């Protein structure tokens, strides 16, 4: 029973990792690849970690695994956001079929917003 659940979780996790890898290969834009790699990758790895924790049936491994999953969940979006922002400022081109760009004229060359608002502190 334990092994059945572990096997199913590992299958789903590896499927999502494969989807993320295919996404890295096929998608035509940095930002889209970031969507695939960070999110589907985190989900896949998280599920595999969960499977390992469940398979072990020991409390210390389960604690480690939960800590790892919480860490991945908290830090993966931060990394993706930072990369996206840095890439946008550096001028990485977006895909030609992109619909619209709401950030188009809003930055100056230093990455500060052009409306010049002093944020309240």
């Amino acid at each position, binding site marked *: 029973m334990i092994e059945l659940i572990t096997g199913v979780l590992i299958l789903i996790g590896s*499927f*999502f990792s494969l*989807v993320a890898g*295919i*996404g890295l290969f*096929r*998608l*035509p*834009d940095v*930002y*889209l690849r*970031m*969507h*695939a790699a*960070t*999110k*589907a990758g*985190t*989900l896949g790895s998280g599920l595999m970690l969960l499977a390992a924790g469940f398979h072990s049936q020991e409390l210390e491994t389960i604690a480690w695994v939960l800590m790892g999953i919480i860490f991945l*969940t*908290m830090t*993966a*979006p*931060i990394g*993706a*956001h930072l990369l*996206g*922002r840095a890439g*946008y400022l550096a001028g990485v081109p*977006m*895909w030609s*079929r*992109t*619909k*619209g*760009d*709401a*950030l188009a004229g*809003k930055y100056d060359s230093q990455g*500060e*917003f052009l*409306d010049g*608002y*002093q*944020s*309240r502190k």
Partner: protein
Amino acid sequence: MNLFLLNLVLALVWGAVTGSFAPANLLFGFVLGFFSLWLVRDRVDRRNFYRPARIVRLIWVFLKELCLSSYRVARDTLSPQMSFRPAIIAMPLDLKKDAEITLLANLISLTPGTLSVDVSSDKSTLYIHAMDVDDPAEMCREIKEGFEHLIKDALE
């Protein structure tokens, strides 16, 4: 937080009164304390009383959203002709505190299909790169009524 600590103190008091600090007894004391605080919730702190339930609901909605949109992103990635139209959209914000805006940006970046790119310097707009957007106003409305509403409820 104060309510939770009060509940713990009541559990300990129950353990002292009945003379046994066994975990089952303390748990029962916790449940009794919860029930007695529920009876006087109007006097104690009505707003904070159901806060853990709202936080749990936020986590549950997030997990459900993650599973649903992972399936959608998998379908989009594996489709032979890539029929999605990405865009960067600007979403006006209602949250004002930094911690809440961070939590919202993180949750948006975690659900597949959206990635938060930047926050304007007066914290009034959040720019989001979305993978498949048919109507920017529709997507703004979804995120507002979904995550932002829940975060506002849970943390304020």
